[in-house]
């Protein structure tokens, strides 16, 4: 399968670039590897990116990552405040190490941050700057890592994986720390690229802490470096994505022997959340009574609330077809939720984050095997906005769950109501809003029903 999906250049050398990525040309649903590391770093409170790249690589992420992630600015460390070596031709020809050295030195001096993430873009990778050696000079002065993330090498999702590779290999200690019982770390929710990351992470934390599990979500919480340093102490790592963060938890298992629990998606709604809590509770030896009591309490609340929009759904838009175009985790979660909890019919599911070939079968199976409906959707892996739109033509769906790119013309083009769930989202300010957990499932219903009720 992989040979079919990889491009060979004229000399017959496998370039490692798969066909899917090579052919994506119009408004892809991700940015480059550097952007992924950049966004991930900004997700850490007290983390500061130091870009070793041209100036545009950072500024471009204002629209490419930050505003695209639910109109979120980059804070003190991001946006136009980002430290960047701003390489020009002189550095391309003669090397940019000295400029980077000066930049790191001044950043450590000026910035009130704890974790310095030197991120190499295309230029230093092409010309072969020895960035590792420059970063080594500062390791005794600050918590500093180097992430080699040339934009041509991978997309922003993979940038999240590269970030964790660097943290685990360069920052976390080699020796085994005594693990703390009933503690977990959460992986697989990518800052900015998973637009509802802030709310989803907090929800996962609240859910698990409700059944007695101390949860380190690493991002969004103050003293981010402390949270990173605590990673090796966890009893389990949890990853809520079919491929992002998976490499990190495997690495942590190898390094510290920490086992991991893998879920294909962030849990959305009562069914997925209950399953999530039961599996984690069992692995971490939480008394099943505790777990079941919590689930029962939340479901009682949840299903009473679900009755309120019942009339609107049943009378106005019952058993509607829907289309999803989203990154793997949300595509899986929404497809299952809408079919299994609203009784809606999956029409076409497009996965937009370009997961590696090896996990695509797994994603397809996860969707196909878990739908309580006789309708089987078409499942397509596509990141090219033009092709995504073409794939949506002449179909029966009445709801479109995708990026904001489709929002303005969704009614006109497809006669479908649009709900923005996936990167990029420029038409919503996303702060604490989320779709995970019990309340998140209700929020999906609110968004669906709000689209067709009213207007007065």
């Amino acid at each position, binding site marked *: 399968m992989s040979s079919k999906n990889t491009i060979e250049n004229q000399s017959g050398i496998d370039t490692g670039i798969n066909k899917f990525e090579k052919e994506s040309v119009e408004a892809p649903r991700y940015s480059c590897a550097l952007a992924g590391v950049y966004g991930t770093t900004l997700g850490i409170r007290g983390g500061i990116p130091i870009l070793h790249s041209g100036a545009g690589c950072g500024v471009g992420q204002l629209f490419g990552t930050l505003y695209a992630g639910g109109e979120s600015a980059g804070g003190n460390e991001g946006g136009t405040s980002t430290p960047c070596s701003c390489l020009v*031709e*002189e550095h*391309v*020809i*003669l*090397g940019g190490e000295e400029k980077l050295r000066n930049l790191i030195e001044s950043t450590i001096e000026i910035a009130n941050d704890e974790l310095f993430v030197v991120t190499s873009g295309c230029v230093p990778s092409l*010309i*072969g700057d020895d960035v590792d050696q420059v970063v080594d000079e500062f390791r005794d002065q600050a918590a500093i890592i180097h992430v080699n993330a040339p934009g041509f090498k991978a997309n922003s999702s993979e940038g999240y994986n590269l970030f964790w590779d660097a943290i685990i290999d360069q920052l976390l200690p080699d020796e085994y720390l005594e693990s703390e019982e009933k503690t977990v770390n959460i992986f697989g929710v990518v800052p900015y690229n998973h637009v509802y990351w802030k709310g989803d992470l907090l929800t996962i934390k609240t859910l698990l802490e409700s059944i007695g599990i101390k949860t380190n979500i690493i991002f969004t919480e103050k003293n981010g470096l402390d949270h990173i340093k605590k990673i090796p102490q966890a009893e389990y790592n949890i990853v809520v994505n079919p491929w992002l963060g998976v490499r990190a938890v495997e690495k942590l298992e190898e390094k510290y022997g920490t086992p991991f629990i893998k879920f294909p998606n962030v849990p959305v709604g009562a069914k997925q959340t209950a399953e999530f809590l039961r599996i984690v509770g069992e692995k971490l030896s939480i008394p099943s009574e505790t777990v079941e009591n919590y689930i029962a309490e939340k479901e009682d609340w949840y299903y009473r609330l679900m009755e309120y929009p019942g009339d609107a759904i049943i009378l106005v838009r019952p058993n509607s077809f829907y289309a999803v175009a989203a990154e793997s985790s949300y595509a899986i979660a929404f497809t299952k939720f809408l079919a299994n909890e609203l009784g809606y019919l999956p029409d076409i599911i497009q996965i937009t984050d370009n997961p590696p070939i090896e996990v695509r079968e797994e994603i397809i199976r996860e969707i196909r095997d878990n739908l309580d409906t006789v309708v089987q959707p078409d499942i397509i892996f596509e990141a090219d906005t033009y092709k995504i739109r073409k794939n949506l033509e002449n179909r029966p769906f009445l709801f479109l769950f995708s990026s904001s790119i489709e929002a303005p013309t969704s009614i006109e083009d497809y006669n479908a109501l649009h709900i923005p769930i996936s990167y990029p989202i420029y038409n919503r300010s996303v702060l604490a809003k989320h779709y995970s957990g019990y309340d998140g499932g209700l929020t999906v219903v609110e968004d669906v029903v709000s689209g067709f009720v009213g207007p007065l």
Partner: protein
Amino acid sequence: MPKQIAIYGKGGIGKSTTTSNLSAALSDLGYSVMQIGCDPKNDSTTTLRKGKSIPTVLDTVRQRSGDLDNLVHEGYNGIYCVEAGGPEPGVGCAGRGIIAAIELLDNNGIIDEYSPDIIIYDVLGDVVCGGFAMPIRKGIADQVYTVTSSDYMAIYAVNNLFKGILKYSNNGGALLGGVIGNSIKSSLQEDMIKDFTERTNSDVIQFVPRSPTVTRCELDGVTTIEGAPDSRQAEVYRELARKVINNKDKYLPTPFDNDDLADWASGWINQLLLNRKVEIDNIQEEASGI
């Protein structure tokens, strides 16, 4: 319009020596010559300058001096010497350096200012990336010469250069002017290079024999033309100069595929080795019973 030629050859093959002697000989014939060294080692023009090196184009970039008046330096017999220069070994991107240097010369009208009759680019011959192919792109050199010995790797580099010429030929790039056989010690070596050119539809324009005179002059920091003008070797270079100036041929060679080149070469290498063994062991002498 000046005649613009590019001379390529594998590193260490005698390319700069040949180029400098060619420049010196052309200058003696009365032409105004500019030699532009396109190699980060920046030693192309040293024998035209009594062994002294000159500041390079990229030095001005490095120092941010913006001083464009200090790029062209006069050498032997008024030859205009320019060195593109480049990064320290193991740092930066030399290929981009060549591109930037040529663009800088071009955009600032520096070459036009001196209006030489002939411009010779002396380029590292392993065309490893786009930068080193810059001189054969449209609008720079229009004729390419390549210097080679009978070493397999030197011929391999020539074959690669031929591929580069083919690539740019559709877009108005430079075409081949001929092959210069260098460091020739035996007729068998000449035969090997001749055979290569026949099979690749190219021509040898001149064979340059290996000569201690060249080495001695180089140690003195001068070209053979300057240091030993009456030597036989100097006459060879003058003959080369006359041929180059009169050569209007521009054509597309047909390079070997890599596997075919290796097959072709193995036969010749065996013969050359056998020849050398005969020389060293004096087998013929013994066999003849003398």
